[in-house]
């Protein structure tokens, strides 16, 4: 199963980077999201995958007695998801605003200074 997930990580990275390399700003944002997902999956895999053993201490005990999933990557990813939500919404609005002002979606049109545009 890990092999399949590793390949998925690779695909997410490849797709994310390919989208970032496009000229359209919308694709740029989609690429960022895909890349973010790829990173999340990478971190998640580094903590190893464990099935059906959430990192929650059972009701009756005070410490773990059984195997459990690694909580550290989970905590990292949880904040990463929320932060990337903030980042994505900001990026989306930035693109919207840029489009409104410049009337273009083409990133290559953006590399000129104000005087020229």
């Amino acid at each position: 199963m890990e092999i399949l997930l590793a390949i998925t990580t690779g695909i997410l990275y490849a797709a994310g980077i390919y989208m970032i390399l496009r000229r359209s700003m919308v694709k740029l944002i989609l690429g960022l999201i895909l890349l973010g997902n790829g990173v999340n999956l990478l971190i998640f895999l580094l903590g190893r995958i464990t099935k059906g053993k959430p990192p929650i201490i059972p009701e009756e005990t005070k410490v773990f007695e059984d195997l459990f999933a690694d909580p550290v990557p989970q905590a990292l990813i949880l904040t990463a998801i929320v932060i990337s939500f903030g980042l994505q919404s900001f990026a989306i609005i930035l693109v919207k605003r840029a489009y409104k002002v410049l009337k273009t979606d083409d990133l290559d049109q953006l590399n000129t200074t104000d005087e020229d545009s």
Partner: protein
Amino acid sequence: MKTIILRTASDFLLPVLLLFSVFILLRGHYLPGGGFIGGLVASIAFVLDAFANGLENTKKLLKLHPGFLMPFGLTLSVLAAISPIFFGGQPIMTGLWAEDPIPVIGSIGSALFFDIGVYLIVIGASLTIIFTISESA
């Protein structure tokens, strides 16, 4: 999207979802859940209501701009974080806990208030973003 079914359902869904989000928030220390998730669920509840009844009605319901939740939540979090300084000069972020657990909620401690702060910030931030966008869309 203003269908009768959705509108009728949302009248019930909003309180139920809000209650659910608070429930998730409070149980976060023992079972899956917590401030981040609770906050997101609560904002989904409001967004759903806005879809069904229109943005204006939701705003009226809220009375306050959701942006004001952010400083409020942040203050709560910071206070919870630095409160140990005032209780016997312990380092910040030391967990302080009440002696006896309260039914339903469980033990009350500084971490809980911290989480409530996070909850408010998440609601404030996501609703500010979405409301601002739908207003100008």
